[in-house]
């Protein structure tokens, strides 16, 4: 491993880091553009908050990578691979909490039948309805995330990176937020007072959905669950193949797999240590992904922990 990460993924990781810095730059420009014209439109405000929240996965990724590259220390002898899962959990909680708050707020606006005022502004000697500037900012907010999301998705798959994958999916789906917001503002302009609040409800629901999905995956990782397929809650096919291979090699043993960040840790319970094992040869999937199997440990008979017996 170079600088704490396997050499096979070092180049992809560097590219992902560069993309996340680009993401932060573009998202700040979007937040500034939208903040300048936000007014009192709820859809606009919710879309702005979503764009601000979409900075979190990018920042979390960069922080987690810094930790992942650190060598194990006396106080953290297993290294910092799990920081990745921990930071993913933090961003998931932030997304879910903010999504819930915004959803409640937009539903309350609908219940109270609040009518939103979008006044004109004086621009270059002309009166321009602020709604048009909002629509322009919302359409601008669609383009960079969709391109960045598409660029990140294959990288996230190769790196087996949940934070990057969630970030890519959120950005790829960002066009819906932008268009929902623009439709809400135009609906408001057409005299439908509820259009803005309905658009805000749709956007906040999508934030909540992103948060809940991320929360489910992060919980599985932190609770030593079996490795999951990227962005899904079912078992990772590569992990399943590995489990079958180990079961074939050690029929009397019980096989346990868990995921720490992007790596798989395997435990063979009920047999003595096998010194012939080689992690690269053992890996049943594509050889270039053998880095995923980071550890194989053996638990001799009668030494299994109580939790392992259940």
């Amino acid at each position, binding site marked *: 491993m170079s600088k704490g990460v396997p050499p096979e993924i070092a180049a992809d990781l560097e590219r992902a880091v560069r993309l996340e810095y680009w993401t932060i730059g573009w998202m700040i420009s979007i937040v500034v553009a939208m903040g300048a014209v936000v007014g009192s439109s709820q859809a606009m405000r919710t879309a702005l908050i979503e764009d601000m929240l979409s900075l979190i996965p990018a920042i979390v990724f960069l922080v987690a990578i810094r930790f992942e590259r650190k060598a194990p220390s006396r106080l953290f002898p297993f290294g910092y691979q799990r920081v990745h899962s921990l930071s993913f959990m933090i961003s998931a909680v932030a997304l879910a909490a903010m999504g819930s708050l915004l959803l409640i707020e937009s539903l309350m606006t609908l219940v109270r039948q*609040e*009518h*939103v*005022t*979008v*006044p*004109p502004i*004086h621009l270059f000697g002309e*009166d321009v*309805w602020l*709604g048009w500037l909002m629509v322009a900012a919302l359409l601008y907010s669609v383009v960079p995330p969709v391109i960045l999301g598409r660029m990140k998705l294959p990288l996230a798959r190769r790196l087996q990176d949940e934070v990057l994958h969630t970030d890519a999916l959120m950005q790829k789906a960002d066009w819906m937020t932008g268009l929902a917001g623009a439709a809400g503002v*135009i609906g*408001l*302009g*057409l*005299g*439908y*007072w509820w259009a803005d609040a309905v658009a805000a409800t749709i956007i906040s629901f999508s934030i909540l959905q992103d948060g809940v999905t991320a929360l489910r995956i992060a919980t599985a990782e932190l609770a030593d669950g079996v490795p999951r397929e990227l962005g899904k809650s079912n078992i990772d096919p590569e992990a399943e193949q590995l489990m079958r291979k180990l079961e074939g090699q050690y029929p009397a043993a019980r096989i346990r797999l868990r995921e720490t960040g992007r790596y798989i840790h395997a435990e063979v319970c009920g047999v003595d240590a096998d010194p012939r094992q080689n992690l690269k040869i053992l890996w049943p999937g594509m050889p270039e992904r053998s880095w995923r199997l980071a550890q194989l440990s053996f638990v001799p008979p009668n030494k299994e922990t109580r939790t392992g017996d259940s």
Partner: protein
Amino acid sequence: MKRWPILCLAWAATCCSDIPKDPEGTLDRVRAERRFQVGIIAAGGSRIGLDRQVLMLRRVSEATGADPILQTGASGPLLTRLEEGELDIVIGQFAPASPWGKKVTLLPPIGEQVSRDGHILLTVAARNGENAWIGLLHREARAVAAKP
């Protein structure tokens, strides 16, 4: 087939020129009925900004082809009636951080003064969300404010 894009653009341009519209149709009603209901907040005999109030009403009247129907009263009842749609505008003195700013739309001030009570703005208030009507009032309020 080639006419479709042109027709779509023409349709979009027609729709866009009509935006924004009022959810409660204030501007259309004012133009149709040729009158609008005005609440003047009583200022305890003060005539400060009276000329600007008159100028504002005259400009709105010219822009809509409608006559103002005036009624005077205390700010609370007038602004409540504005919120409920019984009045179309309320003109009066407001503090810069007036709590009414959330319940009704306060337009750019048409005059201001500094008194012992602090900074006071002479402002027009309109019902929230009536964006076409508010757009017209905005334009006229800015024109009145620009007068020396």
